[in-house]
């Protein structure tokens, strides 16, 4: 089932609209990067898709079982171990699951993010990258087709981020999820997305989109060219607000 956004609008109180007339269709199994400058309403759009906020106008079609969500900070619960965090997600997603079943599944998910040995550690004992991987495993534990990610790697160092890009791509291919990945980093968007949507600022609206083809993935020249084009367009958007 695809995700469809139709003339979606959002304003807080009487203020200027944060989102205005957002239109997009995201196919099942697609990896879409949602790109925009800081403060353009990307996170608001994602929150609406996750059902955390209600749109003020327009319509929205998401899978009926909702969406899994990954936040910018890992937001793991500090009173639970890494495995405990995943087990809680499993328990809340499926009330009929057994304790042993949840434990096995949690271990599988930890293996999937290459953290098999860290299940008994608590969040504060893990590095930022490891916490984000646990958070990724937790969002996969929800077992929803749609996975929404809100700048999940923004606070990580470069090497860790590159690693997590590889890992996310691998997991996306293995699990066939539909992923909407919000970022303000053009390279990240081109690196990960099959399609890049550019969101304008104030009000947020989808103003441009690019397909990232296999050619872009394998050929440095093409990739660089696309990154350049998107960066210019993004800067144009930001400059509009200079006056």
């Amino acid at each position, binding site marked *: 089932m695809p995700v469809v956004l139709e003339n979606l609008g959002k304003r807080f109180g009487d203020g200027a609209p944060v989102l205005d007339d957002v239109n997009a269709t995201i196919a099942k199994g697609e990896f879409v990067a949602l790109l925009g400058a800081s403060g353009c309403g990307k996170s608001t759009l994602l929150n609406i898709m*996750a*059902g*955390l906020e209600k749109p003020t106008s327009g319509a929205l079609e998401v899978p009926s079982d*909702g*969406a*899994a*969500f990954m*936040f910018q*900070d890992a*937001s793991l*619960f*500090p*009173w*639970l171990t890494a495995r405990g965090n995943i087990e*809680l*997600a499993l328990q*809340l*997603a499926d009330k009929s699951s057994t304790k042993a079943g949840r434990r096995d599944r949690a271990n599988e998910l930890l293996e999937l993010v*290459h*953290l098999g040995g*860290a299940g008994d*550690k*608590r*969040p*504060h*004992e*893990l*590095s*930022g*990258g*490891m916490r984000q991987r646990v958070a990724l495993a*937790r969002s996969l534990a*929800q077992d929803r087709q749609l996975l929404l990610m809100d700048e999940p790697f923004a606070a990580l160092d*470069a*090497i*860790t981020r*590159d*690693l997590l*890009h*590889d*890992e996310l791509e691998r997991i996306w291919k293995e699990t066939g999820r539909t992923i909407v990945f919000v970022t303000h980093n053009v*390279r990240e968007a*081109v*690196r990960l997305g099959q399609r890049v949507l550019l969101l304008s600022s104030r009000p947020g609206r989808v103003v441009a989109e690019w397909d990232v083809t296999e050619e*872009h*993935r*394998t050929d*440095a*020249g093409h*990739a*660089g*060219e696309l*990154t*350049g084009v998107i*960066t*210019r367009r993004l*800067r144009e958007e*930001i*400059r509009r607000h200079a006056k």
Partner: protein
Amino acid sequence: MPSNPITTEERTLPVTESKEHITSPSLKGNASELRDLEAGLDNLQSDLGRKRGIEWKRVLLPVVALVVLILAWQFYVSLGLKRRDQVPGPLDVLNQLVVLWGEGKVQESVWTSLQRGLVGFLISVVVATPVGLLLAQVAPLRRAFGPLISGLQVLPSVAWVPAAIIWFGLTDATVYFVVLMGAIPSIINGLISGVDQIPPQYRSVGTVLGANRLQMALQIILPAALPGYIGGLKQGWAFSWRSLMAAEIIAVGGTIGFGLGSLLDQGRALSDMAIVMSAILLILFVGILIELLVFGPIEKRLLLRRGLLAGSSR
């Protein structure tokens, strides 16, 4: 934002025939190399285990402090500024304690008071926890009853003793009533302030994970608020112990048993300062014991597990 599109162009346009993957610049290698890289980062960036064992300083320092205080006390008494029956020395009090122990009064009074204090405290926890959660979660209820609860916490629970004696007479019910009125508001307020300090993100995570209201309250809100809740419990215990002593001192006789407060009152009636000081020391001792054996370890473990202990002076 200062920007110069020309430099961007120069930087990102392909200038060479290089095979570098521009969008993923630094990572090359096969899967196992990447895994090793990842494992290496994980090991470098995560915490190493800490040393364990008995910390002698932790045991020794309080003992030394106690000895110094007792020596100072003895020194003051040996100056002979006051009559010995008004200010007894440490040895006098110790002798009195031995006598009271021989009569079985120490055991009886400590047991009676401790039992009442604990039962009263447990009832308070059972009553206050759901009420606190409800008030913290339901805004209209909190607006309606919040000020009243805060007021009750400030009101000294001794103020309830006369009313309790009129209602319940000189029975255990009087003592328990006073204890509950002292402890319950305190625990409720602790829990509410604990809930107030939960990062809003935890609720969002709970919603996204599909928690219903009850699951949210029991599996996310309550554990997240645990540090504040434990603080409230600690204060609740202090309030119930104090209220208990006050009640026992004022309400003597009837079917009320012989507690530490009663012992204190007996010392006053006999004008025997050694008994009074023995009772005070016993009350203090029970308080320290509960803190050391119950709340201290619970709090320490809680903070340690959440990584909140680093740099603290505990």
